[in-house]
């Protein structure tokens, strides 16, 4: 039986991972996650909720980070409520 040999087009993959359309789609999904996080975030002072944001973070590809990056107690609230983990579903499927 003939064997199929697959050669990945690395340059093509890199271009895809940095494509404008991929960037825009990531941004749309990140905003949906942010909205879900803000809705689910427990509020006492409002500082944590208002600190939630989307950050564009480019490595070898376009990415988005969503969450609180400035308050040390953000992880405690997440560990107690899971509000950040729950928000991931807002991104939708593939």
């Amino acid at each position, binding site marked *: 039986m003939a064997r199929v040999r697959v050669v990945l087009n690395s340059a093509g993959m890199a271009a895809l991972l940095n494509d404008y359309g991929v960037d825009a789609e990531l941004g749309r999904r990140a905003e949906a996650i942010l909205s879900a996080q803000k809705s689910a975030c427990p509020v006492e002072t409002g500082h944590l909720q208002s600190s939630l944001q989307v950050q564009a973070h480019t490595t070898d590809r376009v990415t988005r980070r969503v969450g609180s990056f400035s308050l040390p*107690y953000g992880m*405690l609230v997440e*560990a*107690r409520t*899971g509000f950040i*983990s*729950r928000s991931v*579903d807002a991104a939708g*499927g593939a």
Partner: protein
Amino acid sequence: VSGLLPVVRYADPLLWITGYIRAALVALGKSDVRVSDRYDETNTDRAVWVLPTGGHRLTVVTATRRFGINIYAPGPTGQPVNTLAEDVRSALAACPGSGAVKAYTELSAPVPIDDPNGIPRRYMTCEIVIKGA
């Protein structure tokens, strides 16, 4: 009800994961560790608290479920809680094939959490793929 697709039900994943962790810890001689889905504000003992954090259907017969897992162990250093966290982490990594679980992904490794009671605490997240029937 009737439709084009079969009705698929899933076993309670929270019941499964708490039972799985409990059994794994008992096998390691740590039967005193409380494994629960209930948060206890007064806890100062060794404990594992599992928090379900969602998931979605993948196919007609498979679905994902995510969990946040808090691990507590008192001690003068972080060593006891690190050891307990590694016990839980390594046991979960071996879970595919147990019950209806088909796949497992560790989303985030255990990280330190400043617990209000001062007890050393770690938090990790994971996701399983389960098959319905």
